[in-house]
């Protein structure tokens, strides 16, 4: 025992005079990165990583709000790889100039070929990238090359957000050679290889090491032409327990704790050396019911559940009141939102009646949740008991982030509690992101032809009044079909060490780590 005591002492000494993380940025994350492939990231943490190592061609400019907080201004757009762009009168064509002198990490110059290849790969790999191009920008063919640093991009239909859609990670620069090198006959775009490896990359950080389930290490890239990363080394520690993440932030071992739940924030409130950044969020928490998996293929069942859920209880007990009720598919801040004018209010009796009239046979349904998100389990348990109150049996299934997002994207989840964040606060965008028939992000496989037609026409509609009316109708339809039970809109919260500055809040709530610096 004395021997152990000595070791403790020795260890304390080490702790005191080896403050080896002082310069570095240590981030505690809940689960491992599911993929490094720009085309197909789902797990939010993957996007964090991709923004660090890859670079999309455009970015929202940083502005200071009256409160002094830094935010990415979604109403404007700066070029990073793209120097400038010009929309032609036809509303379909864009001529884009590429900034000269930029290179990938491996020194390969960024030019038209590279940019063209980015479009090409995105169009050919099923994923967020393809969806953005096809469903948002209405681009279905790669741009034509004018010269080494100029390209011409042409869409099929006019879209207001051709350029802004490119601020997503999927539009990042990659090295064609490397991709081709690892392509195989059944995998021509090397998606398998890219899930674990970086093809070129031009972001402010380079991936140094990735030890699955343990840590990911980044180092600043000196060749970066934008404002270089101020913190040279960045270590992401995978710490499954949110409580431990919070505790480690408190004890100063880590500098940022991702994916904390209300419990953790409560415990961190007022802790010295820790600051909590809050911002209103477009993140919509919903209970998804898969319209193509029984019993939820029956709208009555979906409605019944929507009546059963005890919304106020969740707001009160899970979010400690630090969230707004969500009434429909649009966030409360969205000018098109109907707010509480439509939507479900808890009514168990009604729920039971609807269920009785439905095709539900009393079988147990499965609520799948992401084990790295602290609040999900708590919500799930409450919903489970609500469902019991109308006579529905439900089982809860916790999945690791990787598996969860795989099943989700495969549209295999019967029922899930998930967050949806429309990175562009536009009705067209958010609907076609998640509720348009068959789109990539329509995880609950909802389909309503009328809603689809509204989405299609909505893009072109310029008359605001008309557009409002259209989307009012769409919202009513969706609420009536109840593909989701609309639960809550919690505020965005991020806990980090006092003295860590430079955080910029973007609409998609993904930080760019090169902004951070030690005050």
């Amino acid at each position, binding site marked *: 025992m004395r021997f152990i005591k000595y070791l403790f002492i020795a260890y304390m000494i080490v702790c005191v005079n080896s403050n080896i993380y002082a310069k570095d940025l240590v981030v505690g994350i809940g689960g491992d990165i599911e993929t490094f492939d720009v085309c197909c990231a789902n797990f939010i943490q993957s996007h964090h990583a991709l923004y660090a190592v890859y670079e999309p061609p455009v970015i929202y400019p940083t502005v200071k709000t009256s409160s002094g907080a830094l935010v990415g201004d979604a109403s404007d757009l700066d070029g990073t790889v793209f120097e400038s762009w010009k929309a032609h009168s036809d509303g379909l064509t864009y001529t884009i100039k590429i900034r000269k002198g930029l290179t990938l990490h491996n020194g390969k110059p960024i030019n038209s070929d590279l940019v063209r290849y980015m479009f090409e790969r995105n169009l050919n790999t099923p994923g967020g990238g393809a969806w953005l191009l096809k469903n948002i920008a209405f681009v279905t063919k790669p741009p034509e090359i004018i010269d080494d640093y100029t390209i011409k991009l042409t869409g099929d239909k006019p879209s207001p957000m051709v350029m802004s859609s490119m601020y997503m990670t999927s539009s990042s620069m990659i090295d064609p050679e490397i991709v081709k090198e690892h392509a195989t006959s059944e995998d021509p775009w090397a998606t398998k290889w890219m899930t674990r490896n970086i093809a070129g990359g031009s972001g402010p950080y380079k991936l140094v090491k990735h030890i699955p389930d343990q840590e990911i290490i980044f180092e600043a890239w000196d060749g970066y032409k934008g404002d270089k990363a101020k913190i040279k080394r960045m270590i992401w520690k995978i710490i499954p*327990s949110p*409580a*431990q993440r919070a*505790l480690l932030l408190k004890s100063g071992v880590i500098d940022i704790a991702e994916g904390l739940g209300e*419990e953790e924030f409560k415990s961190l409130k007022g802790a010295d050396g820790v600051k909590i950044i809050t911002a209103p969020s477009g993140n919509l928490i919903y209970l998804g019911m898969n319209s193509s998996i029984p019993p939820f293929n029956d709208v009555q069942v979906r409605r019944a559940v929507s009546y059963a859920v005890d919304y106020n209880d969740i707001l009160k*007990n899970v979010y400690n009141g630090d969230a707004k009720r969500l009434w429909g598919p649009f966030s409360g801040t969205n000018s098109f939102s109907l707010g509480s004018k439509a939507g479900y209010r808890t009514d168990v009796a009604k729920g039971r009646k609807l269920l009785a009239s439905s095709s539900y046979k009393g079988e147990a349904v499965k609520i799948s949740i992401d084990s790295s998100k602290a609040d999900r389990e708590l919500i799930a348990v409450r919903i*489970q*008991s609500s469902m019991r109150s109308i006579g529905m049996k439900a089982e*809860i299934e916790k999945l690791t982030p990787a598996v969860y997002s795989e099943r989700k994207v495969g549209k295999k989840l019967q029922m899930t509690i998930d967050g949806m964040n429309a990175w562009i606060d536009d009705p067209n965008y958010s609907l076609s992101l998640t509720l348009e028939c068959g789109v990539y992000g329509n995880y609950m496989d909802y389909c309503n032809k009328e809603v689809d037609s509204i989405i299609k026409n909505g893009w072109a509609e310029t008359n605001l009044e008309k557009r409002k009316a259209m989307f009012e109708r769409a919202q009513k339809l969706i609420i009536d079909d109840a593909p989701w039970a609309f639960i809550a809109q919690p505020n965005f919260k991020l806990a980090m060490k006092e003295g860590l500055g430079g955080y910029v809040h973007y609409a998609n709530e993904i930080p760019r780590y090169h902004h951070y610096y030690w005050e």
Partner: protein
Amino acid sequence: MTTILLRKILQFLKTPSYLFLTLIISMAIFGPFFLKNPIEISNGPRLSPPSFDFLFGTDQYGMDILSRVVNGGRIDLFTGFMASFIAASIGMPLGALAAYKKGVWDQILLRTSESFQAFPVLILAMGTIAAIGSSMVNIIFVIAIVNVPVYIKLTRSSVVPILEKDFIHAARCAGKSDLRILFKHILPNVSPVVISQFSVNCAWAIQILAALSFVGLGVKLPTPEWGAMVRGGSDYILYGQWWVSVFPGIAILLTVLTLNQVSDIIGEKK
């Protein structure tokens, strides 16, 4: 022969562990009738510390920990008992057979159980559960299977010496059928050993179940099960909300401790 067993049971009835055992079991059986619904959430604030209306406090869902611990007793004890019962009823006859028939059968059974014991039981159980799905039946089945070899070896090793005894020869000479001998003479003789093993085994089965649920492969949330409850609280314990996982932990500890004691008492060589 059964008198040995009787004597042991009698002397066991005198011990405190007997009291404990009956206490635990009757708690598991009758307790739930007097307590709140273990999965009813709206009956109190979340994570409230032990108080008069919630003796053990409430957990992260706002459920009454006391009634969850008691109800958990039902699940854990039942699983433990069933698993080891199945294991015993498969393993004992096989073991006796091995000892009785000797030769090839003996070797096969022996080697199989040996290689079985080389396995990391927990991982094997986890893998299997994960593959075939974690229904209560599956869990019991898997735990039972991994326990069978124990009984095979045990029964065999305690039957072999008995076979040398005279009264077996006598019975053989009297032309009694093998099965008859097995059940009338041999099994009664090994019963004390087996019963003591059975008790240990229940304990062990409970530990495995708890472990499985602890890593999230056992019972489904929010079923009241001790391992799962410990897991649920293992985060909050770091905020000083200790009661969530301490009470179920104590429950496991006491139960296993008692069962081991029982086995010690019954298994004592006399």
